[in-house]
């Protein structure tokens, strides 16, 4: 029996079953509190009501970046320590990370329309986020392209790490590129020093989104483990049918 790849996650499955609902509840509560606080907070004198997009936009940006880091760590887990859960964690995280990155891009674009008069400008920070999104999409595509989960996991791990090394280079080069061709013609987003009244709800919603991520991630990991179990059983059944 080839349960070598299934044996280990047993304890994890039990743990995940308990933790998922807890995190989901925490996410709902924190997000509710955060949004209420956010709507009570004063509107920005310059940006008006649209500033409230920030309570989604910024946590999504942070999570998009954070989840990629998590995947890079998982990649080490896959390649160096060969931990059986590492590639499951990486695989489950990828679509969620891509989702948060997309939310950041979309909310940013919606925000940019009233602020800059265009949905999109080739600003350094925006563009590096778009590149991050592309990296996510490449990773998702590679997951799909290689059917054997173990193989796919190791391939994606390498891609994730190469991408990770590259992220600072991209960031650096993009900053440089941008200042080169377009010196400060664009409204700089890191402008307003953040007022505590805005910071508090921002932190709360960030925690809320983080809890949401943990809940989604655990559930996705469980699904992935079950999917692999089904796959193995089907191959075994195929073998024993004769």
């Amino acid at each position: 029996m080839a349960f070598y790849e299934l044996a280990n996650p047993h304890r994890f499955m039990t743990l995940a079953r308990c933790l998922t609902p807890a995190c989901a509840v925490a996410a709902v509560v924190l997000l509710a509190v955060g949004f209420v606080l956010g709507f009570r907070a004063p509107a920005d004198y310059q940006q008006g009501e649209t500033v409230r997009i920030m309570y989604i936009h910024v946590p999504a940006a942070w999570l998009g970046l954070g989840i990629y880091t998590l995947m890079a760590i998982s990649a080490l887990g896959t390649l160096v320590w060969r931990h059986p859960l590492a590639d499951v964690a990486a695989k489950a995280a990828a679509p969620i990370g891509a989702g948060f990155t997309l939310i950041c891009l979309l909310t940013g674009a919606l925000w940019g329309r009233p602020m800059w008069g265009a949905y999109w400008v080739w600003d350094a920070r925006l563009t590096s986020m778009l590149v991050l999104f592309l990296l996510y999409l490449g990773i998702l595509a590679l997951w799909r392209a290689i059917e054997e989960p173990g193989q796919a996991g190791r391939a994606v791990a390498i891609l994730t790490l190469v991408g990770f090394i590259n992220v600072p280079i991209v960031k650096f080069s993009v900053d440089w590129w941008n200042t080169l061709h377009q010196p400060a013609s664009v409204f700089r987003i890191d402008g307003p020093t953040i007022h505590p009244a805005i910071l508090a709800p921002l932190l709360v919603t960030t925690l809320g989104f983080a809890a949401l991520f943990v809940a989604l991630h655990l559930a996705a990991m469980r699904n992935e483990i079950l999917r692999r179990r089904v796959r193995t059983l089907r191959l075994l059944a195929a073998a024993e049918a004769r």
Partner: protein
Amino acid sequence: MIAALRAVFVRDLMIAFRVGGGAGIGVVFFLALVTVIPFAIGPDLPLLARIGPAVLWIGALLASLLGLDRIFSADHDDGSLDVLLLAPVPLELIAAAKGAAHWVATGLPLVIAAPLLGLLLGLEPRMLGAIALTLLLGTPALTFFGLVGAALAVALPRGGLLVAVLILPLTIPVLIFGVAATVGAAGGPVPFDMPLRLVGALSLATFVIGPVAAAAAIRQIRD
């Protein structure tokens, strides 16, 4: 006969989607390309908008070229081309079905994604619809011209560049009229519908020329 052709079409599509990274890969490719080009040109939005149609058309060209050289040679390498030649269906139609599958996997996603990508490039709103329409009419011509190059390279394990060289010159008219139609839609110096009709006419012509020439090439080259 319809069943056989559908089988060829579905098989090629299934392979493209399974080993190529899924149905969305074409869109992702265009997104990546449209992201990369400003890095080469500079983040100059008016300039990007000016050459936006060209960027999208060159993206379509690229997507048609990448992997095109394997359309027939992959089948040659694993022996399935022999079986295709023994099917009770003319090779011309089989070539057309394979071309259609390649277009669905690479050309169609661009057509669908073009308006969105146009936004990134700062195209005028009036152009967004036009670019999708011209690409819809024009990209088949790129793929079906490409079919001829792919057929000529059928026995070559790595004919990528060669195929590109063979078909790039053929695609020039499609490019010219396609871009002209898009620019015309935004009130450019030329009218919109004349080049558009020409693009459509080119595509219709390649629907015939491409598969017929490709089938002839395959029959002639295999000795």
